């Protein structure tokens, strides 16, 4: 689709706005509607729009697939780390009160960090979904089937 000038121009305009809005939703999640999940989906959607217009290869040059995969795992780990930090500082799992001196700031810090983990994971997972399905189609077109099946239907050795 790289020859569609209108799409390219509009995408250049819209994609940064998408991402900005994603960040807005992300960092206002602790006291207003929003949070990591919605922000992650917005962020992932921006990247998907980019891939739809510029192609998967360009999209994966921006962020390699191995990095997306690892980010998905690291986001979960960040969440768990904050949870365990609560235990390490003498509270319970996901206890934010021990993270800071004042309870309000502690809750905010905890939720922002946890939601950051959620956001990173969700964005990465949405991108991974898309990448996996798109690449599968490309593989099928070239006829490179990687699956080796073991059929076990026969009752007799042949």
């Amino acid at each position, binding site marked *: 689709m790289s020859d569609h000038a209108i799409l390219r121009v509009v995408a250049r305009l819209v994609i940064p706005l998408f991402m900005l809005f994603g960040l807005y939703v992300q960092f206002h999640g602790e*006291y*207003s*509607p929003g949070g990591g*999940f919605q922000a992650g989906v917005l962020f992932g959607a921006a990247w998907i729009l980019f891939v739809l217009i510029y192609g998967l290869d360009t999209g994966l040059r921006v962020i390699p697939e191995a990095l997306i995969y690892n980010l998905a795992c690291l986001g979960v780990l960040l969440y768990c780390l904050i949870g365990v930090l609560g235990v390490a500082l003498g509270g319970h799992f996901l206890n934010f009160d021990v993270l800071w001196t004042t309870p309000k700031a502690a809750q905010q810090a905890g939720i922002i960090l946890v939601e950051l983990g959620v956001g990173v994971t969700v964005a990465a997972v949405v991108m991974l979904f898309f990448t996996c399905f798109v690449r599968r189609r490309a593989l099928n077109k070239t006829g490179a089937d990687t699956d080796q*099946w073991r059929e076990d239907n026969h009752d007799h050795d042949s």
Partner: protein
Amino acid sequence: MTTILSLFNYWAVIALMMVGYYCLIAHGNMIKKIMGLGIFQTSVFIMFISAGKVLGGSTPILREGVTEYSNPLPHVLILTAIVVGIATTAVALALAVRIQEAFGTIEDDQLSEADPEDAAGQ
């Protein structure tokens, strides 16, 4: 009449649930099954969310001049359930893609021919 109208959210839920469930059972095509599953799950989400609405209640954000809030808990629960639903759909679609590659079809009746031992058990 008033009871029917006042419970219209439940009627919507039931209608959606039946549509989804019918798609799930009646169609042999896996993609249609996945769609049916999605509609079926969505009906339950709507049931939860409509149960959290408090008549006259505002959005559950603490601010001045508002004393009645809708119940935010069902929304949070359903956000979780939606994530679960997305994951389920993604896994189902991934399986459907690989079934298409492995068997060349995603129609249930044609797949049963490829797999008589299972079809006998169904």
